[in-house]
């Protein structure tokens, strides 16, 4: 029982950490589906969102706004910053490249990454800013079942709940709204979408905005954990193996992939670490991704790409 308890503890904390990977991967998938662009800038967008949020919260608190009002205004401000970012990316980076090949677009997002990172740090500062939005203490659960119970971080649970709600909202948006239908249409066929009157540039703006808002949520959770700082952009590096595992075009794939990586690396660290040495967390995801690539190149949920010849 003791062992099962500690296994569950590791599993749960891994799954909840994985939620964050899922969120970042989700941002990638949204943009990739709608425009075929692999967005290298997703990590930079998390940084921008985090800095905008934490710095505006500091500013508002400093000027005596009550807590809840400051939080609402802070999120509104950060949301507007992400909208502005989406507008500029669409207007000046991708817009002029419409109908160019995927590699060109990818290179353009690398350029955008440096600009976004630079502007974010220039505008909001480049130190480590602590963010306290969620409780960071822990619960002890299941004391009756396991000796000593299992330890669960409240922040992780908050993260899981918020990410879950976000995913449900996104799914409803895609499935049931006119704009969601238009987004799916653009993802399937640009020319046909335009022919029924869907303006591609507007849809691309919406998709970058949604990806920006997802980045904001990721930044809020991650920032509470480790403070908002430049290293938050590395979160995006973890998204790559998540995407390979889940498939680049699948929203459920991004979520499941994130959970697998999160849980897998924690479990590997704890249970394999004693035998092959620590630090497994840093490379586990990539090895897993390689394994998936060999067995199922399109990822668990991706569409099989059959080249037309």
């Amino acid at each position: 029982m003791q062992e099962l308890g500690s296994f569950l503890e590791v599993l749960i904390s891994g799954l909840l950490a994985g939620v964050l990977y899922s969120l970042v991967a989700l941002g990638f998938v949204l943009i990739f589906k709608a425009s075929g662009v692999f967005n290298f800038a997703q990590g930079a967008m998390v940084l921008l969102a985090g800095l905008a949020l934490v710095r505006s919260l500091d500013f508002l608190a400093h000027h005596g706004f009550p807590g809840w009002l400051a939080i609402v205004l802070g999120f509104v401000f950060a949301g507007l910053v992400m909208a502005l970012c989406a507008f500029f990316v669409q207007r000046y980076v991708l817009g002029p490249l419409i109908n160019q090949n995927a590699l060109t677009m990818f290179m353009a997002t690398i350029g955008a990454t440096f600009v976004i990172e630079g502007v974010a740090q220039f505008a909001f500062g480049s130190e480590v800013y602590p963010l306290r939005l969620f409780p960071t203490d822990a619960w002890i659960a299941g004391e009756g079942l396991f000796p000593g119970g299992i330890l669960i971080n409240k922040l992780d649970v908050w993260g899981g709940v918020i990410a879950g709600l976000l995913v449900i909202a996104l799914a409803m948006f895609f499935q049931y709204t006119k704009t969601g239908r238009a987004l799916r249409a653009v993802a399937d066929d640009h020319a046909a979408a335009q022919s029924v009157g869907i303006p591609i540039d507007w849809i691309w703006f919406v998709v970058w905005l949604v990806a920006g808002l997802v980045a904001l949520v990721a930044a809020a959770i991650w920032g509470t954990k480790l403070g908002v700082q430049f290293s938050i952009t590395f979160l995006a590096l973890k998204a790559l193996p998540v995407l390979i595992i889940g498939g680049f075009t699948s929203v459920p794939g991004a979520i499941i992939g994130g959970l697998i990586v999160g849980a897998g690396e924690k479990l590997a660290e704890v249970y394999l670490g004693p035998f092959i040495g620590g630090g497994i967390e840093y490379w586990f995801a990539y090895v897993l991704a390689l394994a998936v690539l060999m067995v199922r190149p399109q990822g668990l949920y991706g569409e099989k790409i059959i080249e037309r010849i």
Partner: protein
Amino acid sequence: MSATAAINSADTRAVTNEVLLAVENVTLRFGGVTAINGVSFDIRKGEIRAIIGPNGAGKTSMLNCINGFYHPQEGRITYKGETRQRMRPHVAASQGIARTFQNVALFNGMTTLDNIMTGRTLKMSANIFWQMLRLGPALADEIKHREYCEEIIDFLEIEAIRKTPVGRLPYGLQKRVELARALAMQPDLLLLDEPMAGMNLEEKQDMCRFIIDVNKTFGTTIALIEHDMGVVMDLSDRVVVLEYGRKIADGTPDEVKSDQKVIDAYLGVSH
């Protein structure tokens, strides 16, 4: 094909002399290739206008110019009396131009019904917050437009595949769904790029019937690219013939059929 001819000659159609769309001296180049070379013709309100010609003649490019995918380097396109500059495709759509594609271009991830619903995009008005909640005006809006789509579905006799993902449909039905999506836009001008290519005889006859019915029932003006001469002769009021990007003939089916240049162009050309 005599049945379609009979329907066609029934005098219930509203063909007029009013020009809906005029193309004047349009030239379109891709690098060194001149896809369209100084072509002029017009489409009258209410008619079925065929565009024919051998492969590579520039027919598809012409439709692409009309609905704003391509922007000709020279010439003018006047639609509903308004001469346009560089028009973008979604603007063309909002002015009542709908189309189908030579290679079926459907949204493969969606069902037949959802594909057709995308044709209502421009007619739907409720804002995004109501849409998210599926409440109030958004729900009423969605229901109203769905009803319209159901009418189109009945009209084209595709009730049985309403909920089928279109990727799984046979080619002939995909073409029909594509027509349904275009009709859902309630267009004034419908551009059909080889709507019968790759179909068997029965499917072709169905499609002919639908095209005539659309023209008669909704009064939609139709521009049609088609290779099957029998179909063209039966369906169309007037025919324009392109070859190597130039117009070589323009007139009623009978006039065009007996034109020496057209006969030459079609000799030895497989299609």
